[in-house]
C-alpha cells in the first residue's frame, strides 16, 4: 500500500470520533441576541411590577386574609445592619433563597495527587483510561496498546465507586475506565522509577496529570487550577467598608469556581479576601484564613458583603463581618 493510501486510511479513522457540541462554545461569542431563558433586568422589573399589582390588589380587597405586611420582608435583608444599604428588593425576593441544604454526597475515594500549587507540565497524553481498586485503594492509568502509565492527578481530584470513575475537584464525574482521554501533563523520565505510593498498581511508569483536556472528544479542561482562587493583595480592600449585602451562590462554571448573582443569574469571576482557599469534596467549599467554611458550592447565601462590577465580584465578607 502506498504512503498516500495509508494516509487516507489513517485520516479516515478520524470519522469514528464523536464530534463535541460546538454550538455552546460559538453562540455566546456571536454578539447577537440568542433566545435564552434567563432572568434579564427587564424581566425582573416586569416581575416586580406584576408582584406589586398583585400585592396592592390583594391589600385593597376587604376580604383578604393576608395582610400586606406579610408579603413585604425580603429574606436577603433580614440580617442587614441598620442604615446599611441593601440589595434591591427584586433580587432578594425569592423566599427560598435563605439556603438550600446540600444533598448527601457520596464519599470521595482518595487517588494519588500532586500537592496543591504544583507546577503542571505541558505534554499531552492520549489514550484509554484504565482503573482498578488494588487492596481497597484506587489507581488509574492511561493505556495505549500494551503500554500503561500510572496517573498522578492534580490536587483535589478523587474517585467514586460503583462504578469506578474519576471525579474532579468539585465532585463532578470526569471519566470512567474505557473512556478515551487527552491528558495534559508530563511523564517522569524513564530513568527515574516512581515511588510505590505514586504507582499503587505497580506499572513502573507514571504520567503526572496537570489537567483533563478532553473525554471521549468532549472538551473538559479540568485541572487543579479549577480550585485556584484569586485573592486580593493586602491594603487593597478599602472599598469593602461601603459594600452592601448581595445574594451569591458558589458555582463551577467553565471549569473554574465562580459566583452566581442571585438577582440576575449572571455568573462572574470573583476575587476573595487574602487567605481564602477552596477545598474539594462532594461540594467545594470556600474556607477563610482561620479555617472556617464561609461558602459551599450550590448553596445560596443572600448575606455576602461584596462589590459587583462589570468585570466581576469582589467578595469582602459575610453579614456584618468584613475581612481585612
Amino acid at each position, binding site marked *: 500500500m502506498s504512503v498516500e493510501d495509508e*494516509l487516507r486510511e489513517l485520516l479516515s479513522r478520524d470519522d469514528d*470520533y464523536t464530534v463535541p457540541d460546538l454550538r455552546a462554545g*460559538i453562540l455566546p461569542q*456571536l454578539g447577537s*441576541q440568542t433566545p435564552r431563558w434567563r432572568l434579564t433586568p427587564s424581566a425582573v422589573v416586569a416581575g416586580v411590577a406584576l408582584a406589586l399589582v398583585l400585592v396592592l390588589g390583594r391589600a385593597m380587597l376587604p376580604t383578604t386574609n393576608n395582610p400586606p405586611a406579610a408579603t413585604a420582608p425580603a429574606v436577603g435583608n433580614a440580617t442587614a445592619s441598620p442604615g446599611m444599604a441593601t440589595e434591591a428588593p427584586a433580587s432578594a425576593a425569592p423566599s427560598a433563597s435563605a439556603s438550600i441544604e446540600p444533598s448527601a454526597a457520596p464519599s470521595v475515594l482518595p487517588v494519588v495527587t500532586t500537592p496543591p500549587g504544583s507546577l503542571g507540565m505541558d505534554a*499531552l497524553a492520549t489514550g484509554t483510561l484504565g482503573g482498578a481498586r488494588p487492596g481497597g485503594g484506587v489507581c488509574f492509568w492511561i493505556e495505549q*496498546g500494551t503500554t500503561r502509565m500510572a496517573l498522578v492527578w492534580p490536587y483535589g481530584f478523587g474517585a467514586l465507586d460503583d462504578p469506578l470513575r474519576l471525579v474532579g475537584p468539585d465532585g463532578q464525574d470526569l471519566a470512567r475506565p474505557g473512556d478515551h482521554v487527552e491528558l495534559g501533563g508530563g511523564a517522569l523520565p524513564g530513568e527515574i522509577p516512581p515511588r510505590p505510593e505514586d504507582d499503587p498498581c505497580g506499572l513502573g511508569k507514571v504520567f503526572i496529570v496537570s489537567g483533563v*483536556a478532553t473525554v471521549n472528544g468532549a472538551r473538559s479542561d479540568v485541572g487543579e487550577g479549577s480550585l485556584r482562587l484569586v485573592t486580593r493583595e493586602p491594603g487593597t480592600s478599602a472599598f469593602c467598608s461601603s459594600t452592601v449585602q448581595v445574594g451569591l451562590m458558589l458555582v463551577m462554571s467553565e471549569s473554574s469556581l465562580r459566583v452566581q448573582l442571585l438577582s440576575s443569574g449572571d455568573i462572574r469571576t470573583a476575587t476573595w479576601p487574602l487567605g481564602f482557599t477552596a477545598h474539594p469534596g462532594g461540594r467545594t467549599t470556600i474556607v477563610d484564613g482561620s479555617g472556617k467554611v464561609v461558602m459551599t458550592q450550590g448553596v445560596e447565601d443572600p448575606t455576602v458583603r461584596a462589590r459587583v462590577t462589570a468585570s466581576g465580584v469582589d467578595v469582602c465578607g459575610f453579614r456584618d463581618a468584613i475581612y481585612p
Partner: protein
Amino acid sequence: MSTGPYTESPNAGNEWARIVRLDTQMNEETLVAEARAGSVEAFSRLIDRDGAVCYRLCFAILRSHADAQDAAQATFVKAWRQLPSLRDVSAWSDWLRRIAVRTAIDTARHNRPRMVWLADSDAAQADPSVALADRMELEAAFVRLSTDDRAVLTLRFYLDLELPQVAAALGVPLGTAKSRLHRALQRLRIALEAVP
C-alpha cells in the same frame, strides 16, 4: 380570516411562518443568506450542518481533540463576523473550509508544543488487517510534520480535494499547492523512515 379576540397579529403570523421555514429543510444558500442578514437561528443550523466536517478537518490537521474543538469554534466565530463580506452565498462551503484551514494552522502555531504523543488505542485496534505498529508509525510521522504540511496532506488525502480546490483552500496559487503537496509527501516519507 378569523375575527374577534382570537385573531393573531400579523406579526405573530410572520414569526410563525419564519420559524416553520427555518425548521424545515432550508437549503444551504437560504441559510447562508439569512445568516448573512444577521439571523443567529440560521447560523446555528449552519453550525449543526457543517460543524462535524469542520471539526474533523481541524482534528485531521491538529491531531488533538481539544485543539480541534477550539479551532472549529473559532472558525465559526470568524465566519459569523466575516459573513457580510461573503458575496456569493453558494461559495459558503469552500469559504468556510478556507477559514477552518487557516484557523487550524494558527491554532497550532499559538498552542503549546506536544512533547508526548500516544496513538489512540481504540482507533488503532479498529482494523486488524493493518498492522498496529505500521499505523502508529504513520501517525507518529504525520504528527512530526509541520502544520502546513499536515494541512495540505489533509486537504488532498482526507477531503480528497483536487489540486485547484486544495490551492483555493490554502489561499495559494495552483503551482504553490502542487509543490507544497509534493514536498509534504517527501517529508512524510522521510519522517516515516526516522520513526524508531
